[in-house]
């Protein structure tokens, strides 16, 4: 679905990425991890088409729904208004949403469990609720690929859980290809099939979760001791940092 070939990106004369190559297959869930500023957002922007590569390419087959990291609306649109805007690809240039568009918008709002917030001003929602609305907006475009930029970074655990569960459900039920960036390696464990560890602009590790998402790789990625821990009832694992100098 997504092919990144020898991608290099320079912004304001600063090289951000050099020679990144990877691909994402249909139905994959890719978690992207890396330190702040390493270029996660830039990579996602290239895939979405918002940033232009200096060399190489990032191509995708299929419609992309994009959920940005932080979103604040200048005007006091309602939640429904926001989600309706996701229907842009289906409403013509001079058109306006019709009954079908309303129905689809409502459907995804309900799916995200925020249907009851339909008429509330978007800007008054909590961070978690806003993320869910933005996911509903992306889904309303009836995309095959969902790209999220740090969807959980500003959320508490409860909301993180809702979002991660939602992503898993979308992948299971709709076969949606998902790419998301995160600072929490356990998200990768929970929902991803593949993972990309971005060390710096040249070096990265890409592969199946089982192969690449290891404590050792994570420790060297973040330069912090990270251990893989098991839950008491067995079977489930998580990653935890150990801050010690």
């Amino acid at each position: 679905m997504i092919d990144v070939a020898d991608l290099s990106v320079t912004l304001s004369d600063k090289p951000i990425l050099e020679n990144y190559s990877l691909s994402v297959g249909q139905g994959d869930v890719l978690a992207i991890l890396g330190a702040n500023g390493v270029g996660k957002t830039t990579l996602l922007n290239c895939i979405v088409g918002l940033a232009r590569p200096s060399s190489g390419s990032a191509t995708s087959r299929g419609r992309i729904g994009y959920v940005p990291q932080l979103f604040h609306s200048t005007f006091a649109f309602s939640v429904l208004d926001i989600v309706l805007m996701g229907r842009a690809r289906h409403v013509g240039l001079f058109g306006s949403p019709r009954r079908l568009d309303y129905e689809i918008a409502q459907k995804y709002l309900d799916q995200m469990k925020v249907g009851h917030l339909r008429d509330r001003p978007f800007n008054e929602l909590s961070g978690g609720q806003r993320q869910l609305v933005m996911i509903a907006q992306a889904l309303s475009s009836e995309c095959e690929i969902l790209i999220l930029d740090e969807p959980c970074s500003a959320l508490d655990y409860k909301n993180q859980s809702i979002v991660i569960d939602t992503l898993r459900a979308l992948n299971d039920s709709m076969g949606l290809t998902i790419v998301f960036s995160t600072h929490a390696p356990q998200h990768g464990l929970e929902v991803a099939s593949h993972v990309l560890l971005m060390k710096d602009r040249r070096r990265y590790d890409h592969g199946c979760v089982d192969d690449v998402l290891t404590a050792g790789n994570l420790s060297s990625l973040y330069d912090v001791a990270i251990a893989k821990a098991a839950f008491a009832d067995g079977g489930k694992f998580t990653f935890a940092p150990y801050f010690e100098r």
Partner: protein
Amino acid sequence: MTHATIAVLSGTRLRTWAIVALLSVVLVVFATYSITLGRYDIAVVDVWRIVWDNVVPAEAPTWTPVQADVVEVIRLPRILAALLIGAGLAISGAALQGLFRNPLVDPINIGVTAGAGFGGTLAILMVGGGYPVLAAAFACGIGSLLVVRGLASVKGRTSTLTLVLAGVIVTAFFESAISIVKLLADPHQKLPAITYWLMGSIAATNYSDLVLIAVAIVPPSIVIFLLRYQINILSLGEDKARALGSPIEIVQWTIFAAVSFISAGVVATSGIIGWVGLVIPHVARTLVGPDHGRLLPVSALLGAIYLLLVDDIARTATVAELPIGIITSLIGVPVFAIILRRTQSRSGWTHD
């Protein structure tokens, strides 16, 4: 199905229709009242009879032909012009605000009006008159929008401060350019023509002026209304809009063209009138919210009523007629300051 029906019949929709209906009634009533204002003595009932006479000819007129002329030739075109111009400027303001994601934008403070004024002035200097003047006003109006957009966008983000400053810069530039043109103009022929063109007012609108105003305002307004959904999307930000799949370049160019057309038509017939596009969408937004499908029609109606009110004041308040642009400034600039203060106090200077 139930959810969609609820959405269609939701409170906001009903409320919007109620407001539109109410404003339409107010507009008709107010226009009917406005046509009775004037120095020449005509009985109020006769005024309406004269207007109705054009629809259904009366058998025995209770008025004199002079009175009919006063109503039909002097008062009526002016009132219609005020309605059209008010609606057009309000729609232009709302569209620009959506485009620039900033509720403080108005054609006059973003430089379009000054650009149109300069274009027309230059055309008068070089060609003399007629359609080239309108075309030049239109072209320079668009040019000023492009310059402002170029100046104000840094890495795709546009802050209030840079936008306002860019508008100030562009306006100042074009006003200086107009002064230079005036200096170069022959003081006996071209200079009076230029001064007259820039100072124009609604005062002596005749029916051919009115046709020009209608042509300059109605089609572009319809185009802007057709783009209401796209303006919603654009107001989320260029990146977001592009990611959603909106053809943002086409939308931006079309809106720039439409707004410039309206501004050129207004400047060419009626002089510099500003701040309507700031005040009215602001009020309309508090009434029906920011969705442009509701905002644009309500802004148009409110703008028409507002400018008619301003024009009534302009022609009846004092013995000499007040220029309409001065009144809209006296109202609009303080409103601008109040809105600016409110938005800044809520979210700080880097509000985007």
